[in-house]
């Protein structure tokens, strides 16, 4: 399987997840989107040494995974992109920040190590949050919600159209790549002599496709106006979810839950 086919499979897996039904899937997409954004903002706002404060933030995604019935492991595949990047940056911290912040028995942990772990957790948490959003919300509903949240129409429409053609184009390139590899065994990529024509050929075909697509839109009465799926109005349930989430995030942000519980147990 080549890269494009892998991407296609990933895309269709996300679609399949979003098509399931659960309590979370049934919530208003705007409520989910806003809760996710607030979650990520709160997560990012923790101090780089505040590891214990940050830790309870893990409960929300875990709760969501359980309620929505989405397997946690489906998300970890996606970590392969975020984690190395975050690590590449975070790795320097232990070298430059060597003040000891924590001592467990005889083992001492420097501030750099703490901040590196915090950074990685932030990366994992925010990834889980946006993954959960997309795994419980189909793209068409998300777009309808984006419109309701005043994202410009042209951008939302473009997102919808592009999403549709990402599948088509990726598929075509996957086939082209396969055909290329069959005639060029042992080559890892596209040889320099075909750098321009490989994508260029498809580009030219795509331009014709765009024209036909535009014709197809015109024939169905397109006049600069797109219709989105009709999503149900924002209900009490959605409001409750949103405010519940935001309140919980704020409490976790303002009170060090782990410290608090730990303190109670020890005393």
């Amino acid at each position, binding site marked *: 399987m080549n890269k494009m086919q892998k991407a296609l499979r990933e*895309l*269709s897996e996300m679609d399949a997840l979003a*098509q399931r039904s659960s309590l979370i899937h049934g919530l208003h997409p705007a409520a989910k989107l806003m809760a996710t954004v607030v979650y990520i903002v709160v997560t990012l706002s923790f101090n780089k040494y505040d590891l214990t404060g940050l830790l309870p933030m893990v409960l929300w995604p875990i709760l969501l995974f359980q309620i929505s019935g989405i397997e946690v492991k489906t998300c970890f595949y996606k970590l392969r992109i975020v984690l190395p990047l975050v690590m590449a940056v975070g790795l320097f911290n232990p070298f430059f920040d060597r003040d000891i912040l924590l001592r467990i028995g005889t083992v001492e942990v420097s501030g750099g190590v703490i901040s590196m772990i915090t950074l990685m957790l932030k990366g994992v948490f925010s990834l889980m949050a946006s993954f959960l959003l997309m795994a419980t919300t189909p793209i*068409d509903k998300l777009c309808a919600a984006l419109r309701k949240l005043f994202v410009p129409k042209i951008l939302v429409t473009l997102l919808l159209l592009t*999403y549709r053609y990402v599948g088509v184009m990726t598929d075509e390139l996957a086939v082209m790549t396969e055909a290329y590899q069959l005639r060029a065994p042992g080559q890892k990529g596209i040889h320099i002599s075909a750098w321009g024509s490989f994508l260029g050929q498809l580009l030219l075909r795509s331009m014709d496709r765009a024209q036909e697509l535009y014709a197809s839109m015109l*024939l169905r*009465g397109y006049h600069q106006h797109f219709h989105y799926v009709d999503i149900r109005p924002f209900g009490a349930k959605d409001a409750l979810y949103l405010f519940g989430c935001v309140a919980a995030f704020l409490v976790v942000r303002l009170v060090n839950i782990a410290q608090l519980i730990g303190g109670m147990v020890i005393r």
Partner: protein
Amino acid sequence: MIEFQHVSFAYEKNRPVLKDLSFTIGKGEAVGLIGANGAGKSTVMKLLLGLLEGEGHVLVDGTEVSRKTLGEIRKKLGFVLQNSDNQMFMPTVYEDMIFGPLNYGLSREETEKRVDEVLETLGIPDLKHRYNHKISGGEKRMAAIATVLAMEPEAVLLDEPTSALDPYNRRIVINTIRQLPQTKLITSHDLDMILDTCERVILLSGGEIVADGAAEEILSNRELLEKHRMELPLSKMGR
């Protein structure tokens, strides 16, 4: 219903694609437009839909196709593209189906009703909320026909409706086409399908009409067909 009066067209000067074309298609007729590659079949379709402008007059229901009447004309004509991927530009089948009706000012409820009716008639209600990029070629073609029917056109134009379909799906599409009560204009190289779905055939060659008559007659005329780079349909070949 559809009338071409002395229509000519050229993409480049001195290289005409259509030369002085005239024909009429009555209401409820099913006409097959056949001809070799480059004979001008697609150009006829595009002129009819107002995607191209040529010389002469093209009339739909007595109204001339022109810039002013485009909206009115296109509302009456449903065009099923050869490549369903180009026809279905929204993520799901449902969204594609509501696109046309809503653009022509139908209310949400009416549109909803129509979508369900059309899917029911075509026997594909389970496709409604499927993703366009995840349905099979045959399903995609049926869905494309559904998006066009949802606009309740008076005439349906189909460009190679059976291309790249397996025999099973091809048969489904043929049966569907046969059941459509609308005026039909079908271009195809699948002459057996034309024979199954159309009572009349127009044979184009070099931008001119070389034959126009009963499908049964023209499609059994080996000499005529072979002269214009065509071949007898399999069912007429016999042994």
